[in-house]
């Protein structure tokens, strides 16, 4: 046959159509991050939208909590190959947070406490595709999973769903975020297995 890995046999069979290529279903909820988990004081928490002209709109934690909240149930897919089905989140749609901002720019940089960034086309965080979430499974989001609030962009690999999110900066031209500059794919579509540069 291929002459590769003689005697290797499939162990786990998953024909679940919700599973993208090269993924397996995770039992737990693994964590992936580049450094220590930051401690974030809710009194000092801010979410900031900066448009391509540098104009800023900002919410405190209380103001963010008073925005219209949505419950969302989505499958999530990590580039490290685990997927998790039907994860339940609560938070605010990016459509709400971007409402009234000048959204002529085509790209967005998602920014987090600690300097982590990830880039996405603006079209991928508008139109009901992305949220800033603060609850997971009916409970406040824990710090190690990105609490008090993280981005949720479930149709892209999960590194795009930045933990400890602090804002979105709109950009005329695409720029690479943290992992994207370190070899990970610019867009990250799990259904096209866009894991790394060149995929």
């Amino acid at each position, binding site marked *: 046959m291929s002459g*590769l890995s003689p005697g290797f046999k499939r162990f786990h069979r998953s024909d679940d159509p919700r599973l993208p290529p090269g993924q397996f279903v995770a039992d737990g909820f693994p964590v992936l991050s580049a450094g220590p988990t930051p401690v974030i004081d809710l009194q000092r928490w801010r979410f900031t939208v900066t448009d391509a002209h540098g104009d800023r709109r900002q919410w405190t934690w209380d103001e963010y909590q008073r925005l219209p909240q949505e419950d969302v149930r989505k499958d999530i897919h990590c580039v490290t190959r685990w997927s998790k089905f039907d994860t339940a989140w609560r938070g605010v749609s990016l459509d709400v947070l971007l409402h009234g901002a000048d959204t002529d720019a085509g790209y967005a940089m998602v920014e987090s406490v600690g300097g982590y960034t990830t880039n996405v086309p603006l079209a991928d965080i508008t139109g009901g595709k992305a949220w800033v979430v603060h609850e997971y499974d009916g409970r406040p989001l824990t710090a190690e999973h990105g609490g008090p609030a993280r981005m949720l962009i479930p149709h892209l690999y999960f590194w795009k769903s930045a933990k400890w999110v602090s804002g979105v900066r709109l950009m005329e031209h695409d720029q690479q975020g943290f992992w994207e500059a370190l070899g990970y794919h610019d867009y990250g579509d799990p259904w096209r297995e866009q894991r790394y540069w060149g995929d």
Partner: protein
Amino acid sequence: MTGAWLRARLVDRFPETASARTLVFAVPSWPGHLAGQHVDVRLTADDGYQAVRSYSLSAPADGESAVQISVQPVPDGEVSPYLAEALPVGADVQVRGPLGGWFVWRPQWRDPVMLVAGGSGVAPLMAMLRAREEASGPAPFRLVYSLRDPAQRWFAPDLDRMEADQTGARVAYVYTRRPPEGFPRPAGRLGASDLDAAGWRPGDRPWCYVCGPTAFVEHAANLLVGLGHDQARIRTERFG
């Protein structure tokens, strides 16, 4: 950078513990890698089914024997028991990499380095220790290695030799279940005092690399921050 899938021939496999194995693959067109990077390994069954897993590279490239990984077989695992026990020496798999550009150390860096390993998380940290030794690098290293008991110790000959050579790499062990006879520290979870006693102080401005299971990494990174280490100089890699 990531490139295509490359054929990799298993040229050697040797034990690290009763169950863990180190595998050495010859990969003729391997582009080289940095200490701390990982590799995707792809297995193909006769029916065409493929499975891919990521493994940390545990050593620098050595000529054509470019890719070395160390595998702890997971009970009922699809890939790890095959790699550790079944893949015949001389047979091929496919690899892709190197991957990851964050959890890396370069031999020309001179700052002190603090490595904190939980169990099999020692693998990429061993690659850093070996890269340092190979380059005769001046950066002083400390490794704090947390493991269940002495029988779980990976890379024992190399770690013992580096200690004995006294070239600036030192190792402290934290046994969580059963220490060796006569070991001064009782069994127990990694604590701030273990990192403080064995490692660098925040004033030394070390680069800290923490690798292991998620809960261990969370715990160890929080201890480092609590001791006053600069968050921006702590890099983490979590398994599972």
